[in-house]
């Protein structure tokens, strides 16, 4: 009797397991989906954050895009050059054109001390909210609103709101995904290669007179940097000096001549803040 129960139990469970296993095997055969093994290989290599920085909905669609030839092998801005090289190897290409890692910069130095506020904003704690409410609480219509939309959206925790009311980006954590660039309602966040040391920290297309009223570190459009740059990397966009990072060779001449201290090197900017 005892052995009977034991036997029944083992046989029943074994039978059930076998039936389901057979069913699943048949189903897997019948409903097999042909996938390119390279898609899985590429997905394995990718960071897997599904951040969407490449323009695809996620890492899987990126991998499918690469295999289909719609997306370049170095299209993942988050993965390092190493990732691009590995994907290139999977795709059978020998040499991947590597791209310099980009990091984000807020082109504004108008912190609480430097820039004038024209009103007190006490609404939804978001730059977009302030911007929607009569065009923002800063007197400068191009200045950083300091409510941290870029900090909130950063998927990698690279952005921190400084005590002075300007966001700071950790160059080690920033992957250059560009989410903050899109999130900023004033479009003053930009991406630049990590090797670029000097930046024009102003986005205001205002005249010198207007700028002086609202900010003590804004670009007044004196064009000294344009003349000083040996690479001719700086040009005027109306009354604002703009850096062409492709041409910049880090000579640092612009930093020396800027009368408003608008142009700073990254290290110097950190010093000024401290």
């Amino acid at each position: 009797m005892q052995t009977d129960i034991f036997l029944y139990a083992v046989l029943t469970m074994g039978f059930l397991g076998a039936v389901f296993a057979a069913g699943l095997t048949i189903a897997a055969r019948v409903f097999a989906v042909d996938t390119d093994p390279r898609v899985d290989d590429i997905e394995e290599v990718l960071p897997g954050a599904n951040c969407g920085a490449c323009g695809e909905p996620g890492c899987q669609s990126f991998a499918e895009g690469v295999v289909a030839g719609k997306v370049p092998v170095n299209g993942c801005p988050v993965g390092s050059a190493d990732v691009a090289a590995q994907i290139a190897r999977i795709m059978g290409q020998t040499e991947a054109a590597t791209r310099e890692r980009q990091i984000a910069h807020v082109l504004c130095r108008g912190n609480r001390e430097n820039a004038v506020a024209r009103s007190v904003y006490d609404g939804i704690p978001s730059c977009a909210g302030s911007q929607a409410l009569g065009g923002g609480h800063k007197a400068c219509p191009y200045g950083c609103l300091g409510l941290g939309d870029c900090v909130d959206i950063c998927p990698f925790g690279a952005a921190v709101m400084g005590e002075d009311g300007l966001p700071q980006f950790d160059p080690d954590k920033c992957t250059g995904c560009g989410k903050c660039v899109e999130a900023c309602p004033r479009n003053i966040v930009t991406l630049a290669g990590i090797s670029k040391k000097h930046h024009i920290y102003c986005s205001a297309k205002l005249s010198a007179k207007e700028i002086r009223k609202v900010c003590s570190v804004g670009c007044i459009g004196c064009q000294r940097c344009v003349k000083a740059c040996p690479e001719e990397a700086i040009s005027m966009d109306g009354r604002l000096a703009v850096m062409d990072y492709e041409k910049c060779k880090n000579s640092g001449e612009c930093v020396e001549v800027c009368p408003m201290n608008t142009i700073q090197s990254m290290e110097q900017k950190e010093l000024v803040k401290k």
Partner: protein
Amino acid sequence: MENLLLIFAGTVLVNNFVLAQFLGICPYLGVSRQVDTAFSMGMAVTFVMTMAAMVTFFIQNYLLIPLGLEYLQTVSFILVIASLVQLVEIFLRKVSPVLYRALGIFLPLITTNCAIMGLALLIPREGYNFIEAIVFALGAGVGFTLAIVLMAGLREQLEMSDMPQALRGGAITLIMAGLMAMAFMGFAGVIGT
């Protein structure tokens, strides 16, 4: 017929799987951030629940009971549910890649969902026949969908509100879940004994 209606309404509202029996809390809190995904999850759970109820009914009545092996209920039902979810996954992947992508991680999640296991174990305990079991499973699925979609709607609203830092995320979700469970207790008197 009246009996079936009673079972259905009773499972959806009075003995709601999530809010009265506290089964399936994990997806209820985890997948209730957006109404769309919450609804897909609800549909997937309803489907697997109904399938599982049918298969486990046969196993219980024509295999376990005749052989006197009722104590193997839990093990064999787990086997059924896991295989069923696998089957659904394979099937969906072939037939509707869009739906497969939309459900994504939820499908494997259903495998380890206690609501489905609970359902399979409750059916023999309640002594339902085959039709009653299916209606019961459907009711449980619809009840789950109702609870999770309601929750997702509330959470979408909350995204916009200015909340104290300490309450954000999980904390307020648990408070809302508690309030919803209490509100559903009001249904207890609707369907009499």
